[in-house]
């Protein structure tokens, strides 16, 4: 593997890193919101474009950059997804910063760093790069969550996230250490115990228990879900959007890698543990959201459930990894669109409020007060509920296919029950949005056109990809094929 190809394949990472430096210097030279914002957006765009160039390097599908990274089309697909999400966050964030924040520029740095961390993960095949990426995301997120000065909720959220994810990370690290002790290598591919000794087995199992617990925390899966609503609630909704989508997506991408490369699921007990976690997340997550009246908390709980759904795809790995990958990618795309749209609506609507809207009542009659936002929120809710006409349905369809393909009837049962409960509260959102607006409610006027534009874009994507997903499906299929699964 020539150095040239490595550089070409690693281009996106280099571009983004240098972009961060540029922005940093720019901010250091002169604090100008506009400049920072523009630089950030340019950086992100260039990074996205750089993938085209980089893709040329993957002539035989996969390029290994040292033992840390293994770049392939799927990794790039994830990267682009994360970068686009970051782009959306940057756009919406600029509005949010304009309104309520004194020192705006650092936000972009943090955003870019977090993004860098997130695009590191999909390609990493090594515990070191894993922990590196995870922590880059984490640390920048602590700051982003606590970004608004004065208000107390963001701070509380940030502290909770910091301490708890600290505990999570330690569990993760401890697990890695034990796995390493068992296998003698930090690469995913070689993580199985070198010697078949009982001791090695135990190290491996206990290590995985710790490892997956840490991961489950990052993905906020039951029983490690409990922090999620508070953090989502406290953080500014645009940051929540990022946290809910990019950080989770990145973690999922890397553990999926780990599951495939390290054949973790060959060990029945790990599989069992994951199955139980998945079922619990689907059911409990939805139950928690059932009568919740705080919009952001509803979305938090529902994200727990959705991560549970995604585990079905993860568990498919050992029987049909290719389709598992397709499912994960497609589901994440769907999930990104829906979640960003939902949180986007909240943050756009909060533009002129001094406190962020978060109760469900604050969007009552939205369909009549602010049609665009209303429609987008409806579409997002319907999509989250997995009802046709939206990409959410295609995603759910994939899950069913995956589940039946793997013969995981138990999980399918849980999936059905979970979605059944889910429909109720998503529909409550829809009903609130379309019902007659309370008379004292003021119309949302003068909302930023960028925000509305982005929302419309997301809505259209959800619908178009929901009605005619053909090209997306084929794209993912081909990429996975080329990547050699």
């Amino acid at each position, binding site marked *: 593997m020539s150095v040239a190809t490595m550089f070409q394949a690693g281009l996106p990472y280099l571009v983004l890193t240098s972009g961060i430096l540029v922005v940093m210097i720019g901010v250091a030279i002169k604090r100008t919101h506009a400049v920072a914002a523009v630089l950030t957006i340019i950086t992100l765009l260039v990074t996205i474009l750089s993938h085209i160039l980089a893709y040329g390097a993957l002539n035989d599908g996969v390029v290994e950059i040292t033992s840390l990274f293994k770049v392939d089309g799927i990794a790039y697909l994830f990267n682009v997804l994360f970068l686009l999400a970051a782009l959306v966050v940057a756009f919406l964030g600029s509005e949010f910063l304009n309104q309520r924040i004194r020192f705006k520029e650092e936000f972009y740095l943090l955003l870019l760093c977090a993004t860098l961390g997130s695009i590191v993960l999909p390609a990493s095949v090594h515990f070191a790069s894993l922990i590196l990426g995870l922590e880059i995301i984490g640390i920048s997120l602590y700051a982003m969550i606590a970004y608004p000065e004065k208000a107390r909720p963001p701070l509380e959220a940030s502290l909770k996230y910091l*301490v708890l994810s600290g505990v999570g990370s330690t569990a993760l690290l401890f697990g890695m250490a034990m796995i390493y002790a068992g296998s003698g290598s930090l690469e995913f591919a070689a993580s199985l115990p070198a010697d078949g000794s009982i001791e090695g087995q135990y190290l491996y199992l206990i290590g995985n228990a710790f490892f997956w617990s840490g991961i489950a925390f990052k993905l906020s899966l039951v029983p490690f879900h409990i922090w999620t609503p508070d953090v989502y609630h406290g953080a500014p909704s645009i940051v929540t959007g990022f946290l809910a989508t990019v950080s989770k997506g990145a973690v999922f991408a890397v553990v999926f890698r780990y599951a495939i490369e390290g054949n973790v699921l060959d060990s029945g007990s790990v599989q069992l543990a994951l199955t139980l976690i998945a079922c619990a997340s689907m059911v409990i997550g939805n139950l928690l959201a059932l009568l919740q009246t705080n919009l952001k908390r509803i979305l938090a709980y529902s994200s727990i459930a959705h991560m549970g759904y995604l585990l079905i795809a993860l568990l498919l790995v050992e029987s049909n990894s290719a389709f598992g990958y397709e499912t994960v990618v497609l589901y994440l795309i769907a999930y990104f669109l829906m979640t960003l749209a939902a949180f986007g609506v909240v943050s756009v609507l909060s533009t002129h409020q001094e406190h962020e809207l978060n109760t469900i009542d604050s969007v009552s009659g939205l369909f009549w007060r602010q049609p665009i936002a209303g429609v987008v929120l409806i579409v997002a809710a319907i999509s989250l509920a997995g009802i046709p006409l939206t990409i959410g349905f295609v995603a759910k369809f994939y899950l069913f296919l995956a589940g039946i393909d793997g013969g995981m009837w138990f999980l399918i049962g849980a999936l059905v029950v979970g979605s059944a409960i889910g429909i109720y509260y998503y529909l409550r959102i829809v009903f609130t949005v379309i019902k007659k607006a309370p008379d004292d409610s003021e119309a949302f006027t003068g909302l930023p056109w960028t925000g509305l534009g982005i929302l419309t874009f997301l809505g259209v994507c959800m619908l178009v990809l929901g009605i005619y997903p053909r090209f997306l499906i084929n794209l993912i299929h081909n990429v996975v094929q080329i990547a050699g699964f």
Partner: protein
Amino acid sequence: MHLLWAIPALPLAGFLILFLTEGRLPKPVVSSIGAGSVGLAALLTGYIGWQFVSSDTTEFVSSSWTWMIVGDLDVSFRLWLDELSLVMVGVITGVGFLIHWYATGYMSDEEGYSRFFCYMNLFVFAMLMLVMGDNLLLLFLGWEGVGLCSYLLIGFFHKIPEFGYAARKAFVVTRVGDTFLIIALFLLFHQVSSLNIQDGLLFARENMSEGSTINTIICLLLLGGAVGKSAQVPLQTWLPDAMAGPTPVSALIHAATMVTAGVYLIARMQDFFLLSPTAMLCVAVVGLVTLLIASFTALVQSDIKRVLAYSTMSQIGYMFFALGVGAWSAGLFHLMTHAFFKALLFLASGSVILAMHHEQNMFKMGGLWKKLPVPFIGMLVGSAALVALPLTSGFFSKDAILLKAWKNDSDFSTLFWTVAVIAAFLTSLYTVRMMALTFFGKPQSEMHELKKESLWHPSRIRTVVPFALLAVLSIAGGWLGFEFTGRLFDDKGVHAELHFDPIALLTLGIPFAGVVVGYFLFASDLLDRRILIKNRMSELVSKFWGSGWGFDKAYDTMIVNPFRFIAQTRLNRNDVVDLFFKLIKFLASLFHHILSMFQTGHIRWYAFTMLGGLLLVLLTVVWI
């Protein structure tokens, strides 16, 4: 080829016109359409009847479009006319026309004049379909159609809730009978795999053995249907209440035509019944029981129309009895004559009631014969026919039945005959009573001066004509039908060749006896009527009889009230089944609340749960 189809088409056309114009037409037009359509139908019937009799064909058929063809089931709108249906059609159109004619006068003051004739025409149409259909489904169409019209017309004065109730009662009770009928249809189709009547009869003649169970079941089901429509025990309770309808309705539907549909049905399906002695026996018994019960009840009624209603029941009982003992022709003959004189009686009573300003209680009448000569004569003639005084139409038919009953060679023939004769005696009793209370004795309430609206004012003279015609028929109808009905069945017709043996004399004598006794009981002052009425025994008896032998009460307590209770009390207004789903909802929210209790917001508790989770995962992975 011939205009058979036009017979039902005419009243249908009348119905449609009246229905679509929503009563915007002036009354004369309405009456000419309403009565005229039936009149034309009657004339046409006469013409076709003459054609038919003079031709040597056994039936006229007129096909129109296919109704439905599904698998074996193939029914179409095909009209079928043979002697049997010809008699019925004659009665329906003929008597029907006269009653329509009369009604043009009788109803002229009521609101909804057009609506009335609309329903009446529809009824005639439906009745014609009933008797002319060549397949059982078409028959059933008519069957339900007449039921509907009877419902509509009983409840014609829809402002009065009791009438509405009576109407619904009539509909539902007959519906019960109809269910038997339609199940019979299913069974027939199951056997014959065709609903065509002639196919059915053929099948019965060829493939069914004497007294085969399946055949008996079919017959009993058919009987069930007939019982419902013809107000026989045990489904007779609706008929007395049905008197709520305007009197012409009672005359046409609840005396002359619809209630005899059951008789027609059994006669039509003769070949099935012939093969099933059991069924025949049942028919006879049903007839007799009704006959007795109705006669006794009629004996103590105070409402003149109810008396007539019960007498109708009993007369139809005669017809059933006749069919049951195999006196087919006699039964049909009686059907015809009964149509004449009962219609006459009703119309007459109607005139009385109208003149008395809708007073129906006979005890409030009395001594009317001077004031209302024409109704009186009509009543007189009708009653004569009813009690079967010689040479009236009723005499011939009833005599024929009794003789057949005597000559019928079943084990019960004597018993049957005796009961029938007793019933005949009772008939004369209550008839005399009715006449006495209504027309003789001293006026119980002072009779208002006849006002302009009264029927007997010269301006209403048109109502007298149908009246007179009916009177003539009830006298002469005997000879009219005598020969003709003989041709209906091969049971040697109704020829009463042996009119001089003791039995014949007895049957001849009974009515007179009845009249005489009745006279002493109710008309003359020779013996004190109070003896009868005052003692408790007779009070109880009369109470029991008066309530129609307590059938209504029994049904109310057994069926109606329980159903009402479970339905109308809030017991299950909203659906026990829903509780299950409510339970699910409750459980879900319960779990939601329980789980939410964990979300305390205390970071240390959160950390604790996480470590707990870690422990759980460890246990799962390592020890399972």
